[in-house]
């Protein structure tokens, strides 16, 4: 299996699938209510940078701080995922 990859390791325009959300219960709940959980497809539409990143998740754009994106473990997807 590949070493852990986080949203902060992606590049602008990359698509990925969420493998896990680490961190405490509060963090997982915050992410879940915004639609980010295991299996969610995401695309980086701004950043990632020191501030964090803006992700396209379904029809929504979510701005997430650096402290958040480094807790979202992902699997890199080659090419665009249809629908996001």
């Amino acid at each position, binding site marked *: 299996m590949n070493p852990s990859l986080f949203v902060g390791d992606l590049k602008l325009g990359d698509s990925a699938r969420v493998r896990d959300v680490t961190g405490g219960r509060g963090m997982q709940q*915050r992410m879940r*209510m915004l639609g980010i959980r295991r299996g969610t497809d995401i695309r980086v539409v*701004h950043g990632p940078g020191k501030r*964090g990143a803006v992700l396209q998740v*379904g*029809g929504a*754009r979510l*701005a997430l*701080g650096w402290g958040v994106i480094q807790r979202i473990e992902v699997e890199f997807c080659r090419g665009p995922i249809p629908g996001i």
Partner: protein
Amino acid sequence: MSACHEENQKTQATAGLPIIALAGNPNCGKTTLFNLLTGTHQQVGNWPGVTVERRSGSMSLDGRKVSVVDLPGVYSLLGGGGEDQAVARDYLLDGPVDLIVNIVDASNLERHLTLTAELLETGRPMVLVVNMVDEAEAQGLGVLTTELSAALGLPVVSMVARRGKGRGNLLDSLTQALRQAPHGTPPPHGLLIERALGVLTALLPDSNPVRRRFDALRLLEGSAEPADSGMEHTLRQIIAEVEDGSAETPADLIMDQRFGWAQEMAATALHRNGYTGMRQRITDLLDHVVLNDWFGIPVFLLVLYLIFVVSFSGGNIFLDFFDQASAALLIHGVGHVLLETGLPTWLIALVAGGVGGGLNLVISFIPPVGLTFVFLALLDDSGYMARAAYAMDRLMRRLGLPGNALVPMVIGFGCNVPAIMGSRIIEDPRGRILTVLIQPFMSCSARLTIYMAFAVVFFRSNGGQVVFALYVLGIIVALLTAWLLGKTALRGEALPFVMELPPYRLPGIRSVVLQSWQRLKVFTFRVGRVIAVIGVVLFILPGIGWTDHGLRSTDIDHSLLAQGSRALVPIFAPMGIQQGNWPAISGLIAGAAAKEIVIGTLNGVYQRQNAADLMATYRDPDIAGQLWGALKTIPTNAITFITTLDDPLGLSAMESTASTQQASGAESVTLQAIATSFTALSAFAYLVFVLLYVPCASTMGALRREVGWGWMIFSLLYGSSLAWGASTLIYQTGTFAKHPGSSGAWIIGVLASFALLVIGLRLYGQRAATLAKPSLNQKAASA
């Protein structure tokens, strides 16, 4: 603003009626739909968290009155989010709701439907509104309402609430639903989970079965702690049983089921009939600029700058017209009519000079204040606010504030009260207290009237810049206050930034006009009412005074008001208030009640001091001529506005002498009196004092409600001492050359007191940290 008071009355008036509650994720259009249904004009905006409290209104359905409740947006009934979401959650679980209208965003259907799954689980009757179908279409997605309705077992209405599209269908569905309650089919949990829920709900204490079921779900999902060790033991047993039976944790089972269901429903409801086109590319392009690491913050500052400078300069075009025309009608016209009827002079002076003069001053400032409201409404609608919050997040975080604290701060430019309420969108208690405490430093529209009056006299040609400087000073003081408190009394880290960025929208003319009109109406009525009363009071209070023979009627300079204010003048002397300028102090005292009346108070006193020659102007006023003159100022000022567009910083004006600035514009008695009582420097110091000292009574009330007595009193004391210190620093630095000895002493004194304050706050923080640790942890756990 005043909306909250009206709401309470409405709630009482609608008791006993069937209740329809609007529920949905933040920024899905609940309030827009609420306004559409009830015909009210609650504030709407294009960012998550516009509504932070419950509001109710009424509508007529099928000849019967029905109560409609608008709730803050909520992502999940199972917890998470700030205080605003808790308000919605509690009402949906425990409130007396007869019908839920669940609003979902068609362009983000899957996520919005997870809330629908939870709402179905409450077992309450429900109608589903698929809103913003136009935005889904722009993404190339069509909505199949019939298919979705069949799959959910619920009536489904597709709408574009912003344009009123689909209203008729919704009304039909609501009428039908109140006659025969539609209960949809919630996603099934499976036998294992249902059995576990059965065991847990039997153990939970709450009397409401819906609440018990959700508490049990929270326990199984691991989003709540068991209340005691007995419960913990049982929970562990149940979880083990489920894991034995399915090889998965109950949390995974429940959530996979719910999210899978939402995905399936969304797939049923949507069909792709095109590809994302232009819109997505425009969003990408705009985001690239406004969120840029380097340009993000400058762009935000530029937007603010444009708002305030254009409001001021643009407002200036009509300011003279409003001023002169209202003076002609309300002061001279009314004075003339009263004089004709033969009323005594004192009464004429009271009505024409006091009430008329007070109103005249407020009316003058309607153009710039109204323009500020228009720009704030544009900002609200555009979708930029949440992005500005993200752009500022890193800077704010360094100062110990979460980035989304910026949103209430911008609202604060309109009025501090909704800004303090709006701080509820911040999740962690510490960040919320910080955000609430800095709101009073945001220059509200009421303070703008004071700036304007002084700017018209002293800084006529670069007034926009002076006013902007005051706004910026407010922001800087607010941020530094947050930083200071965050390093001393309220130590901790801000939660990492998480915010949904709404789609960009071209602001609708109707909504912008309606919204700014709504705010302006509240502003004018509030101001008009208060000033009219104060004008009268100030015409009586300055008429009596304490003499050797007791309380007697005296001239104004020996009145109670003068005696009281004069006694306070020495305190304000270091910031440049001269002994004779006691009316300035009266204004500050009145300003503690409402900032709108500071200028009204000054008006009352100055008018009274200069009342003698007014009767002559009432005798034979040339009202038509004055109105014509007023009208002619519009083109003249418009030309000035256009010719100074290339000099937005007003640099050329700084070279002109102060005397010409003073001469221009000072038409009314009050403004002339201001011109003689202040220098440009002491006027600026006075304005800084007005910006920072105690907030108005309504803001104090909001502070007490949101953070308690202790922090409210701290805010008052901190604000007043900071105001005094800052204006003293400004005045003494400006006049340093004249008297270096005393100025130096004042400056050192102010700085030393500030150092003492910092040390005090630090000590408090250390003590609070040792005392409050357990309770803070409890709060974090329950959140």
